[in-house]
Each structure stands twice: as C-alpha cells, then as structure tokens.
C-alpha cells in the first residue's frame, strides 16, 4: 500500500537532486540566495518587495522542475480548499464528506473535492479481480470483466449527483453553502449506457426492476425502476477524464441522473433484473421520508429543482460597498433549469439571473447577477425553476407539508444575510 507513495517521493527527490546538480551549478549561488531572502524578510516587506515597482522573487529564480509532481496537486496557497468533513462523528465508516461549493467556480467538481457518502468504508478493489454479474429475468445471465465493460460503445455525459439528505429540515442549519448543500457535485461521466448492457443479456417479460448491489462491506442494495434503466442510466468507469476515484466507486459504478445519490450504487458488482423491488434495508428503513402523521413515503427517487448562491455566501465577507457579482448553482433531477431568479431585498422583489451556457439536463447550471451593494444590511437568495415549470419552494412551504421529521429531499431556498460590515451568514439560522 505504501509503495506508490514511496515511489512518488523517490521521483520527486531524484528530480530535485538532478536540478540542484545540473541547474543549480549553472546558476551558481542564485538558488541559495533566493531562498534565504524569503526566510529572512519580514511579512510586510516581503509583500512590498513583490509588488510594483519591484520585481517579485518568483521571477528571479527558476520554479519547480518537471517531475516534481507526477500527479498534479493544487497550489499550496489553496490548501484550505478541501472536503468539508465533520470532526465530531462517532464513527467514519458510514459517513459523508461535503464539497466546498463556496470555493468552486463553474459547474464541474474536481475529482478530489467530489462529495462522498459511504455505508461501510471505501473498498480497495483490483479491477482485474472485479466482476459485474447480470442475472434474473434475462435470456442469458452474464459476467463481465472490466475489459468487457470498456469494449461496449461508450458515452460521456455531464450530470450532477446529490445525496438525498442535503440538508435536513431541523435546526441547527449550516453556516456555509457547503454545510447546507455540499452533498452535491457535478462531473463528466464516461461509461456505457445501461440499456446496451441489459440488451446484451436480453430482458424477459415481466422485467420491471433492476436490483443493484455494491462490492463494499455493506453490499449496498437498491432497486431501480426499469424505465430509468432504459432511459439515461449509465455504468460509469471514468469521471472528469480519469478513472473513478475509489471514493466514487472504482472500478465501476451505476449512475442514475437526477435520482438521490445513494441509488447510483458504487463498486457495482451485480445487477438482478426482477419483477419487484427487493425492499432492501436502504429502501425501507433508511431512505424513506417520514410524514407528520407517521406514514412514510417510499421509493422517493427524484431530487427536485434547487439552487443556492455560492458567492457571496455564509462564512464570506464583502470587502466594501460597490460592485459584487452574485453567483450560484441551480439543478433539477427532472431536467434542465429554465430560469433562476435572485432577490437582494429579502424576497420582496426578484430579478432573472443570467444562465451560463451550456444549460444541460440534470447537470449543475451556473447563474450570475451583477449587483451593486450599497453597504446596508441585505438578504439575498436564489430561486430555481426547471423545464417542468416547478418552482423551488421556501423552507416554510416545505415544512408546512412535510414537517421537520421528513429529513430527506429538502430543496428549500436558502437566504444569506449580509451585515453592514459585509459579513455573510445563514439568514435561516
């Protein structure tokens, strides 16, 4: 397990040595002099030394040599942009980590910051030993290797993925956009249409559901309606151009665009075509929605239209009155976002935001609204409408129908309060 890390260290060390031996000799004392200058200077003068009219120190010495990072990492100045992982959980095998939405631009989530939800830890799976079994109501039960799966015609699609409980309905509500809806990410997925794989085995009459099982220690199991499997479901092996990360189901996962995240079963090892759902623990006792009268909704698959302003958002501070672009993300499990409205006066009036192209079905859509902040306290919020005409509701409207015990599928509008000093906080908290 430590072999790859050691190998990387060796490569980095070797490169640095080669640089010092070859390049360093050429440059004489310049390398050492540059390093000392940085450590000796005080913070203030160091900044002044790097600002006009002075020439910054990083222009006076060569940078890191090729090979210093065989797999690139973000700038050390971005080391604070990491997954938002709670530090007070009683256990971390069945847990989740959030995407830092307020620190990201555009619609694509970097793979290292993609949200995670596991039910029994992250397995380490050798793709050469991984198999997908397809059986049940099919003409020919089949077993596929990963090489087999990659032989099928491939497709790449951009879809969001969102955890069903993102966030809950009860206080305390989160402070940042990530705290609130960070169990949400978006990526370009590459794999094969599930429809092609099912046809390879031949669906039999009475095939109404497909039961998917993961190769994790939870053997997590969910039942998917056959209509979804034949519509846009994918078997995915790559994410944003590279093979899936272990946390995202390496080497193979299911992807069900617009459905609650746990149904896109990771580490996929088995698909059983059936006449009925399997009524697994996850789809009876866990991912069901408790109503105020004690009844519970089951098979609540879709994530409804939703949006949130990510800049400015909770935990940030507006530096001064004047121009500030309001920017955020919107998404719907039912299709494309048709419009996003933004209010800067606590919901009294709304303006239509600009949508960044491309606006894709079941993907994040970036919206923007130019805004001049007058320095007075304000409450800003966004409201998404999708192509079905559905309008994102308020938390009060949701609570009025579903009550506080519902837990999942909270797609409420989340307003941010901006204080006179520019501090941004959760207006619902």
């Amino acid at each position, binding site marked *: 397990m430590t072999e790859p890390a050691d190998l990387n260290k060796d490569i980095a060390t070797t490169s640095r040595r080669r640089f010092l031996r070859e390049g360093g000799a050429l440059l004489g004392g310049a390398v050492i002099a540059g390093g000392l200058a940085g450590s000796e200077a005080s913070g203030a003068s160091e900044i002044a030394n790097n600002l006009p009219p002075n020439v910054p120190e990083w222009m006076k010495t060569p940078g890191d040599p090729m090979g210093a990072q065989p797999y690139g990492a973000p700038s050390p100045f971005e080391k604070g942009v990491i997954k938002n992982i709670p530090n007070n959980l009683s256990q971390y095998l069945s847990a989740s980590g959030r995407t830092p939405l307020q620190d990201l631009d555009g619609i694509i989530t970097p793979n290292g910051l993609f949200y995670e939800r596991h039910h029994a830890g992250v397995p380490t799976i050798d793709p050469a030993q991984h198999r997908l079994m397809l*059986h049940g109501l099919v003409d020919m039960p089949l077993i596929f290797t990963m090489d087999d799966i990659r032989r099928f015609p491939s497709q790449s699609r951009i879809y969001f993925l969102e955890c069903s409980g993102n966030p809950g309905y009860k206080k305390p509500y989160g402070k940042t956009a990530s705290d609130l809806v960070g169990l949400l990410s978006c990526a370009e997925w590459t794999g094969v249409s599930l429809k092609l794989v099912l046809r*390879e085995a031949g669906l039999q009459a009475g095939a109404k559901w497909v039961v998917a099982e993961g190769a994790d*220690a939870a053997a997590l199991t969910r039942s998917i309606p056959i209509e979804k499997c034949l519509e846009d479901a994918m078997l995915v092996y790559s994410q944003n151009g590279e093979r899936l990360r272990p946390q995202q189901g390496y080497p193979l996962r299911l992807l069900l665009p617009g459905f609650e995240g746990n149904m896109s079963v990771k580490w996929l090892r088995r698909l059983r075509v059936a006449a*009925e759902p399997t009524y697994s623990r996850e789809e009876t006792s866990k991912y069901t929605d408790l109503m105020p009268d004690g009844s519970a909704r089951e098979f609540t698959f879709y994530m409804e239209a939703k949006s949130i302003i990510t800049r400015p958002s909770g935990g940030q501070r507006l530096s001064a009155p004047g121009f500030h672009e309001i920017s955020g993300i919107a998404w719907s499990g039912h299709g494309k976002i048709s419009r996003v409205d933004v209010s800067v006066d606590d919901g009294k009036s709304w303006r239509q935001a600009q949508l960044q192209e491309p606006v894709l079905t079941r993907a994040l859509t970036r919206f923007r609204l130019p805004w001049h902040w007058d320095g007075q306290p304000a409450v800003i919020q966004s409201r998404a409408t999708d192509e079905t005409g559905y309008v994102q509701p308020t938390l009060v409207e949701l609570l009025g129908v579903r009550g506080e*015990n519902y837990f999942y599928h909270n797609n409420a509008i989340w307003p941010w309060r901006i204080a006179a000093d520019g501090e941004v906080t959760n207006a619902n908290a």
Partner: protein
Amino acid sequence: MPMRELRIAGFAVFLLACAEPVQAQGPYGIGRAATPAEIAGWNIDIDRNGNGLPPGIGGVGRGREIFDQQCAVCHGAKGEGGIGDRLAGGQGTLATPKPVRTVGSYWPYAPTLFDYIRRAMPQNAPQTLSNDDVYAVSAYVLNLNGLLPSDATLNAKTLSAIKMPNRSMFVDDPRPDVKNTACMTGC
C-alpha cells in the same frame, strides 16, 4: 418458473461439458455466461416475502449470545443504540416531534432483517455469520422489540410469517407536493 429452472439445469450440464467459458451471444458478443453456481454464490437478495431465505434455524437464546459478543458494542446491550443505530423500542413515536425509527417501530418487513444482517453485519466482519446465526440474531432483535417470545426460533417459514407493526404505513411518492410561484414584484 419451471421452464426457466429446466433451462438453467440444462445450461449447467452444457457448461460441465465445456472446458472454455461460454461466450455470450448478445448484440455485441461481450461477456460470458454466468453459471448457476456463480449466481447462487453471489445472489443473497431476500425479498419482503422471504423469497431467497436459505435453510437454517436459530433461536432467541443463541441470538442473545452472538449479539452480546458481536453487536452490543455498537448497538447497545439491549439494542438501545450507540455508535450503531438504535434497534429496539420507539413504537408509537413516529408521529411525534421525536420519532424513533427502529426495527420494531419502523421496518415494514421482517425478512429484510435477515437480508441486511447477512450482507452487512457485523460491520467489522460482514458475511461471516452462518445462516443459523443470522436467523438467531434476527430472532433476538425481534425479541428485543417485543415481537417474538424468548423461547422462539426462526427459519425461512416463520421469519416470512412475521407481520411488522409499521407495515401498512408506507405510501408512494406523491411529489411534487409543495407548490411555490415565481413572484417577481411585491412578494
């Protein structure tokens, strides 16, 4: 179903006669045939009616022994919860401000208990309990919820016959259930 079993049996004989794995004959000719033995080894699904439950038998007493050794550290000595979910009690709380969702108060189908324990528990060593022991632990968890007497045993037939108290309380998804309007001025 008899037709299908005949086909599977015939297929197994065919496989025994072949040294090489059988290639699939779908549109792309990708993959190989799965044998009945391979499917049997991997398919551990049990539906809500108990279809798929294996042979075996286990009682509340044996279940208590296993639970104390392998489950109580996370779920509490009496299933009251801890690092792991609470498993017992909570009946009558679902419509209150503090609902307690447990096997006894919430789970609609008893066979799901066997399915889940076998595939996922204990968390540090899933799929290691024998079928008899999974029946036993299932029996004890039901006993903790007042749904089985202390001298009871469970097998495929008796587990399938148990009616869970909350069984009738699950409904289909009626969403969209909340309607907002896109008010633009004077809201």
